[in-house]
Each structure stands twice: as C-alpha cells, then as structure tokens.
C-alpha cells in the first residue's frame, strides 16, 4: 500500500471541510479524487503534499505517518492547475530544480532532467523560457518537472482545466501513455467526471467532505451506491417502486407506476427484501429505442429531441398506469412521467409526438434504497 488515509478530519474555522475520510491507494495507481467544487478534494490533495495538515486522523505514505511532515521532505511533487512554471528559469532549469536539491553531480542532473523532458517529448524546448510555450507544452514541462525527482507520489491538481476542450482530450491520452511508459503512483483531483472515467484506475467520489464511494470507473458508473454518485457520474432516469419478488439468481421484480420491472444487480443487495421500497434508475444511454426481448419495455411518446450528430437526445413521456407510487421529481398529480433517452448513431430526426418503445436490460438498472 502506497498511501493510506485513516479517518482524516479537517475544519477551517468552524466549517468542517473533511469529515472522516479513509482511503488506501496502491502502487502505480492513477487514483482520482472526484467531486463538485467545495467537496474537499483539493484539501485532501494539499494534505498529501504537506501544504495543509489534518486536524485528526492519520496520513500514511509508504507506511510512514506524515501528518505534519513539511512538504520538502515528502517528495510528492504537484502538477498545478496554473502549471506554476518559474518564469525566471528556462524549461531545463525548471525541470532540474528538484534534482539540484538532491546530492548529485551537474551532469547527472542534466541527464535526468533531459530524461524527464524526453518522457513528455519536450527535449527540443529545453532552452526556451516557459512564457514562449503554449498551454499544452507548459503542462508537459510541469509534468516533467514533477517526474524528474523520481517521486513517491505525483499529485495532480486539476491539471487540464486550463486547456481548451480539444487539447484536454489529447492530453488525457498523452498522460496515460506517459504513465504506461514510466509507471508512477498518482493522486489526481478533478471535477470532470469524464476525465476521471477515461483515465482513472480507481475513483473516489467526495461530497461535502465525505467519501461516498470508491471503485473502478465502470463500477462507480454502473453500480453507484448513492443517488448523488449516480447523478454526478451522468444523468439517470429515476422511478420509485416496491420489491415484489427476489429470485435466487438475484433478479428482482419491481412494481412501479409504469408497470413491472426486472432488475439484476451484479451482487446481492441487502435492502431488496420483498415489500421494501426502492429507487430504480437507468441511464439515458442504456436505453435502446426498440422493444428487446428479456428487457424492460416502456411505450412512450417523444416530447423533445436534440440532434447532436453522433447521438440524439430525446425527452419522452410515459403514461402512468397507476398512481400508487410517488414519482421522484414529479408532482403526483401529473399523469405523465418524463424520461431522457439517448439514441446513438441516429439515422433520422425524431419528431415530437412520435410514438416509440424504449427498452433497457435488467442488468442496467441501478437499485438504491429509498
């Protein structure tokens, strides 16, 4: 285990910002701290760097408690959102800086700095001043500077948020490639769930100073443990229901306001006892616009459609057959329920008023306790 957080707590004045977070991060993981602004993710990262110390709890790096260790004794370089390249030094001087603080010859420093620049393909820019580089290039230098010292852990503080959308996507791939060639342990803070899902080996979702869920991107996306996590990772259509039956193969039959539904969670859930009230959801992208066998099928009508080239986002309305259940987010008096669905590779534009059937597999149903 590379890093361990045990019940970390921290307040600024009387406002608690971290309320008991425990985590374990393995060697060479690209570990993401994901959450909305103000959730405490940056504070946690700054604790790892040593710029803040926890009020209570233990912070362990390579098994050593480092709660109050000053930043310079940790070898946990950070890649900053603003890159923080020193304008009075050349690219090479920036990258050699950390090495110059270690006992080694000037040649050795230069060799290792060039190696680090090599890793980000920035050797040609070694003698340039940071001001002469584009945003993406500065980002690469910042990564080289952190890599050069052979870090225990590399910390990333929203490093791509200053780049334009296209460059950001390119840099994601590039970072992954660098990580593949020179594996390192990284803790990466972002509020961009897409960035987290494309890059992370594991994600920790935080909200209001609390850790909500930790897991691989696929697990967090498809099996969120709370409604907040589910919605933070992407849109979900929710409806409430009651468990009617639970099969030995874990298939759960639900009774909802739009009929009977099947859900098949990947592992047994404690709250799915017969008669229990649950929240069921499916993502717009999980729905297909046709009746599929062995799937949940709903008849509906197109309310609005947005064409986006590779996909088409539809809002559809569903007539409710019984009003026994309250529908979340909807006033009970309203006879219709609206869902969002996404059609990939649309062949034609859907028009408002068009009738269609949507279906989603029981495996794609997200089940949460009410």
């Amino acid at each position, binding site marked *: 285990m590379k890093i361990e957080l045990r019940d970390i707590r921290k307040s600024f004045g009387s406002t608690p910002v971290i309320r008991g977070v425990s985590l374990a991060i393995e060697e060479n993981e690209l570990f993401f701290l994901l959450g909305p602004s103000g959730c405490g993710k940056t504070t946690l990262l700054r604790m790892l760097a040593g*710029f803040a110390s926890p009020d209570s709890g233990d912070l362990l790096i390579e098994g050593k408690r480092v709660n109050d260790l000053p930043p310079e004794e940790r070898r946990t370089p950070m890649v900053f959102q603003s890159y923080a390249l020193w304008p009075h030094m050349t690219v090479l001087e920036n990258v050699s800086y950390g090495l110059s603080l270690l006992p080694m010859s000037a040649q050795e420093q230069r060799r290792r700095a060039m190696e680090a620049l090599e890793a980000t393909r920035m050797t040609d820019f070694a003698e340039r001043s940071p001001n002469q580089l584009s945003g993406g290039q500065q980002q690469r230098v910042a990564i080289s*500077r952190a890599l050069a010292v052979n870090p225990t852990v590399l910390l990333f503080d929203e490093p791509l948020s200053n780049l334009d959308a296209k460059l950001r996507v390119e840099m994601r791939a590039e970072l992954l490639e660098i990580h593949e060639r020179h594996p390192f342990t990284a803790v990466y803070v972002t509020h961009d769930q897409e960035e987290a899902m494309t890059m992370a080996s594991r994600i920790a979702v935080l909200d209001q100073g609390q850790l909500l869920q930790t897991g691989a991107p696929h697990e967090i996306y498809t099996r969120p443990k709370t409604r907040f996590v589910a919605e933070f990772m992407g849109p979900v259509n929710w409806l409430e229901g009651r468990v009617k039956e639970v099969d030995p193969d874990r298939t759960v039959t639900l009774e909802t306001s739009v009929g009977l539904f099947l859900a098949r969670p990947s592992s047994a859930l404690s709250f799915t006892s017969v008669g229990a009230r649950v929240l069921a959801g499916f993502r717009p992208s999980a729905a297909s616009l046709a009746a599929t066998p062995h799937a949940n099928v709903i008849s509906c009508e197109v309310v609005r459609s947005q064409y986006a080239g590779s996909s088409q986002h539809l809002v559809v309305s569903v007539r409710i057959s019984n009003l026994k259940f309250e529908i979340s987010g909807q006033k009970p008096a309203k006879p219709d329920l609206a869902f969002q669905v996404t059609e990939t590779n649309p062949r034609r534009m859907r028009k408002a008023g068009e009738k269609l059937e949507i279906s989603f597999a029981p495996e794609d149903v997200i089940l949460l306790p009410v």
Partner: protein
Amino acid sequence: MKNGWKFYVGLWLTLAFLGAFLVYPVLWVVGGSVWVDGHFTLIFFKLFAESPLMWKCLFNSFTLAILSTLVCVAISLPLAHVFVRYDFPFKPFWQALLMAPMILPPFVGAIGIQQLLGRFGALNHALGLVGPSVANPYPIDWLGAGGYFGVVAMQSLHLFPILFLNISASMANINPSMREAARCLGAPPWRVFRTVTFPLLMPGLFAGSVIVFVWAFTDLGTPLVFGFNEVVAVQIFDKVTETGFNPFGYTLVIVVLLVTVISFLWSRRLVARQDFVTQGKAGVRDEMQPLVGTKRLAVMGLIAVISFLALLPHASVVLQSLSGKWFMSALPQQWTTEHYGEVFTLPQTLTGLKNSFIYSSLSALVDVFLGVTIAYWLARKEFAGKSLLDALTILPLALPGIVLAFGYVVGFNVPTAWHGWDMRWLKSFVNPRDNPMLLLVIGYSVRRLPYIVRAAYSGLQQMSVSLEEASRNLGAGTVTTMRRIVLPLLKGNIIAGAVLTFAFAFLEVSDSLILAMKEQFYPVTKTIWALMGRIEPGSASVACALGVLGMAMLFAAFYTANRILGKKMGSLFG
C-alpha cells in the same frame, strides 16, 4: 501548514524592533507631555495655550498648509483633465517633466527660490527695481512677510505632482458612460463636470489633498531655508537644539501628531469610499481626443508654463552652483565649476557625502530585509497578530519626520549611568548626542518601510502561490524557496525599492537636521544647511553644488527604478 518556532522568533523580533523604534518614541513624547515628576498634569498645554507665539506658529502652519494645498488643487485639476482626456504631441515627455518637481528636494529648491525672488534677487534685478544704479532701499518683497509666500510657492511647486497623480487616477477610473449618460440627457460639458465628474472625483481629490496638507504642515526644510521660523516644524527643531528642558517641544509634537493622525484616518476613509464609487467600472477607458488649433496651443502653453515654474527653483540652484560671482545682478557675473571641485576636496563636504552614503546604503539594506520579510508574512502566512503587524507597517505614513526625530532625541537620551548600571557602552552608539548613526539609519528605513512593504506585497500578490508550493514539494525548504524562487521573481521590486530608499535617505531633511548634532556625523542635507549658514563668500555656492549633485543622484535613482519597474512605478509613491 503550521508556522514553526523560527517564524515566531522572527515575528517577535520584528514586532520588538517596530515597537522600539516606532511606538516607544511616540509614547515617550506623549508621556513626557503630561507626566512631570511622576504626576499627571496638563500644565504644558495650558502654557502652550497662553503663549501668543505658539498660537501664531499654529496659525502660520495651518494657513501655509491650506494655501499650498489650494494652489496644488488649482494647478492639478486642469492638468489632470487635460492629460486624461486629450492627446497631444510629446505627452510622455510633458508628463515626466511635470513629475520632476516631486522628486527634487524642496529643501534645495528653496535655496533657489530665495536667490530668484529675494528682495535683492534676480527677478528684481531683471525688472530693474534694484541694481547698482537704482538706490531703492525697499524693493518689492516677492517672498512676502518673512518668506511666507516663498514657502507657499515652494511647497506648491513641490507637492502638486502628488495631487496630479491622484486626480488623474480618479478621473481615469470614472466610467465614461457616466458622463455620456449625462450628456445624452442634455447636460452641457461644464454642467457634466460640475454634477457628475467633480462629485465622483471628490474622494480622490480630498485624499490627495490630505497628503499634501500633512506634508506642508510638517515640512521643516523649506521654512528653515527661508528663515521663516514662526511655524510649528521649525519651532520643534529649535526646541530640540535648545539646551535644558523646554516643555513646548513635547506639546508641539503632540499637536502635530494629532493633526496628522486625524488627517490620515480621514483620508483613509475617503479612499475607502472612493473604491466604492468606482467599483462598478467596466474597464472602459476614455477615448483620447486629439487637440487641434488654438485649444492645442493653449493647453501646451499651460503645461509649458507650469513646468517652467516648477523647475525654476532648481534651475536657479544650478545657476548658483556654477556662479563665481552673483551679487546685485539678474544673472551671475562670472561662471565657474570650481564649486564642484570643492565639494570633493573640502573636508566638511567629503564627510557629509561619506556619511550619507553609509547611512543611506545601510538603511536601504535594513529596509529591503525588513520590508520583504514583513510583506512575505502578510501576503503568505496566517498568524495571530497579523493585523497588528499590518498596522505597525502603515504607522510611519501617519508619523511625520519631525515627530519621529523628536521622539528619538528624547526617547533615546541614554544617560551615562542608570540605577547604578554603567550605560556608557549603550550611550555611545544609541544616544544621538554621541552618535546618531544607528538612529539615522533606522529612522530613514522605518519611514520608508510602508512603501517598500507595499511594493513587495503587491509583487507577492501578483505572484501565484503555486510557484512557491511547486518548489516546496520538489524538496526545497522555506529558505531555499525564498532564495531561488521568491527573491529572483521579486528582484525588480526589491532593487527599485532599495534604490528609492537610498535616494530618499540621501536627501532626507527632518531626521538628518534634528538627529545629527556633531559635525563629524553630518549627512549631506545637514552639511548643506550648515554651509548655507556660513558667511564666507562661495559657501552658498558649494551648498548648491552639493544640492545639484544630490538632485543628479536622485534623478539617476528614479531613472533606474523606473527602468526596472516600468509602469508599476506608481505603487512606490502611494
């Protein structure tokens, strides 16, 4: 990050230093004014109130300061308007020329004004009112009763650039759409100025006026050179040099302190209000209107006349420094450069130059070290007592030179023995009567401290904290980070600040005149003053030559600082 014990040691040392050299002398003066032989008494204030001389001095100081301020407003308002709104040829040149009087020491300029406007000065000769052929025992006294108007003229010419800068900044901050709104509702330009522009200018105008007022109120050098002794500052100066115990010194300093502190607090409130007024600005700048025809001629004429007047005193100083003989004539009768040679050969001037170089260099060093450290703490650290430190660094702005210098003389009057302890070792380097070096160096630095802290602080504010954090987490400690990241990045601000502190110290008047009591410790300004007082022919010219050298150095300093800082220069004036 928690602050280490080293930080707290440094903080306590700094607070102790500021306490000893800022708070303690002032408290000593306050105490001395109401505490006699262990008893509280207001007898000094009673005596003060009963003294006609003191009332006269107060009256003179107030009216002088108010008049100077009004003249400054009258000069600056039209100038600022012209510079903010119109475009005309050689604008940067004119701007620089108009700024020049601010950096030229009024102490030196006053010598020139006297030469020009005195009863037997150049102007009366040029007008043919006096001369070898005219026997007129009472020619026109342009300087007014005992130099009154001379002081007003000199102070106004020296101080108007401060107001000019203030008013220009306020004017530029007013969103043009506010004026345009009035225009398109049917108000003619003059009405727009009266009802929109001027009210919005008021806070900035008043804040600038307060600076000018306080400066004029506490100015020692100018009235001293004119021999106009019935003002508060000169009285304080006399009380210090008077032997024995004269309580009026204390009461006068208390009065000055009250006036300046009240003015200072008032101006801070006004500035705070101005921030509010201009808060809504959308970053819209005025379109500069080109000036054409007669309007252009009139404007350029106005600027040329003001610049000419403002530089006249110093031009006259240059003339006198080059004159072999200048007596009873409009222009010198003989020209010579020998006075400049004398500056570098006379033991008196050499001592002055040497002393000033040592004092000024040391005070620049102290200031840079102290200023950068304090600015760093204020900008980057959280600690108890931060607001106290902040307040202490602003305090010198509200403490005029004469107040501090007086406090130093009475507060650091170390006796030879104290409660049976031998104090001679301490007395020999702390008591200004024995050796003023320590107090002069500290006095110069402390008075310049607010400016240098502000310059370093704004530099730090513009510098992202992550630049330092990046260094820390690559393995550099606080000291290494300071040395390799912070200082190199602040280099410009620091060098410029040091240069300006040096120049300020070199031509400082009140501390220098009051604290340096033995000739061997005289700095340049006191040497000039001493030379002026001599009767030998030529000593006034040597004083002028010394003054010209001082001005040349000051110009060089400002030029250097300006080159380093570029447009950030304004932050160093406040």
